[in-house]
Structures are given as C-alpha cells and as structure tokens.
C-alpha cells in the first residue's frame, strides 16, 4: 500500500469523485449544529478524499498536497482554534466564551458564528492530522 494502485479506471473515477467528496465534506462541517455532522466528521471525509487521491494517482497527489502539508495544516487549524479560544479573554470573558469575543455585538449571533468557525478550524485540524498519519505510515517516517 505504499505505492499507488495501478488502474486507469480507478484513476479516472477518483479524479472525478474527489471534488464532489470535498464539497460534501464542507457541507457536513457547516451543518454540524443542526444535523448529523460537525468538525470532526467533515474533517475525516476531507482526509479520506486526499487518501483516495494518494492511492489512485500516487506521485501526482504529492504535488497537489505536499508531504509535510498534513502536519502544517493540522498546526494551523489548531492554532486558529486556540486563538479563537483566547480572544474572549482579552475582553473579559472566559476561555472559549464566544458570546464575549467581540464587544458590542449581539452575544447570540456571536455564539452562532463562533461555533461555526470553531467547527471549521477543527475540520482543518482533523484533515491535516489524518493525512499526516497516513503519510507517516506509508512513507516510513519524517524523511
């Protein structure tokens, strides 16, 4: 499983399907508060789309999604989530208290958008982390 599975049929179908899968994944992320879904679930689907590309197209997928990008993406997603958590502290709220993140705006609206962005960042984090795990397992480590 460390190299691509050589089949032109799989290659063509994967190229066609992956964009659709990724759009569906973003749909799952953004609708997590109302229907089954959320940051983690959508992130897993995004990671699955990249892994499908790795399996079907092999080397070309490393140009589109580089080897170290998984860890970098996970780090950026987690950092943004952490900053979102620290932002309310500056304005007198508690950690992760979205209602007080921006003074002057309606707390209910802020919580709505706060959760939305939190789920989005978690989605990036999970996406990056799972692709990083897959890359580490198949390429034998950091080198």
């Amino acid at each position, binding site marked *: 499983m460390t190299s691509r599975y050589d089949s032109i049929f799989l290659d063509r179908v994967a190229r066609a399907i992956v964009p659709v899968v990724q759009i569906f994944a973003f749909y799952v992320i953004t609708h997590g508060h*109302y*229907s089954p879904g*959320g940051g*983690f679930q959508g992130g897993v689907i995004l990671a699955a789309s990249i892994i499908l590309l790795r399996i079907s197209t092999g080397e070309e997928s490393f140009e589109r999604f580089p080897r170290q990008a998984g860890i970098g993406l996970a780090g950026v997603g987690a950092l943004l989530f952490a900053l979102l958590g620290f932002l309310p502290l500056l304005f007198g709220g508690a950690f992760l208290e979205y209602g007080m993140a921006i003074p002057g705006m309606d707390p209910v609206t802020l919580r709505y958008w706060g959760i939305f962005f939190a789920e989005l960042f978690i989605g990036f984090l999970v996406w990056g982390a*799972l692709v990083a*795990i897959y890359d*580490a*397992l198949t390429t*034998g480590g950091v080198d």
Partner: protein
Amino acid sequence: MSEVVAGYYPYVMVGLLLLIGFHGMAMKRNYMKKIIGLTIFQTAIYLLFIQGAAKSGATIPVRSTEFGTAAANYINPLPQVIVLTAIVVGVAITGVALSLMLQIHRRYGSLDEEVILKQVGEEA
C-alpha cells in the same frame, strides 16, 4: 436468567464485545490482531454510552415546535458528545499503535509476538 438477558440485552452485548476485544489483545500473537482487539474493546465502550442515551419516541436534540420544551421528548445529547470525544481519542490511539507496529516490523522483521520477544531477549 433469560429475563436478565432479555431486559438488559444491550449491556450483555457490551460485555460480550469487551471480552472479545480483551481476548484479542491478550491471547492473539499477531500485533495486528491485537490492534483489532483494541478497536473492538473501544467500540464496546461507545456502545455502552450510546444505548444509555437512547429514548423511545424521542427526537433529535434540536428544539422543534411540535415537541415543545419538555426534556423527555429529546434524546440526551451529552453521551453523544462523550462518545464523539472518545472516538477521536480512539483514532489517535490506533494511529500511534499502527506506527509502533510498523516500526517494530521494520526492526525485527516479524509481527509475531513470540518471535519478537525472543529476539528482544537475545539482544538484551
């Protein structure tokens, strides 16, 4: 005895899965089978939480006009969040376990526990 099983069959299933998973982890010699046993063990625990949260005739925990504000009409969302967190932890554990297994295979050339322990003993 059969009333106990019939009345509490989710718990019996959970117990059975825990035992199967534990048997896999302890008794199987292949490391990959141990990891599968670990996954079964963790899945049993998720099942324990979910079936404790289910209510018959209740709807998803989003407030709707027809069900009103009585809490009994909505399933409990907290165990679902607990299970989600536990699944994430389980994924991370499985990831680390697979990496360790690959590293062991690269160093000792085998996935059989007895072969590996014998080699470790000889090298010490």
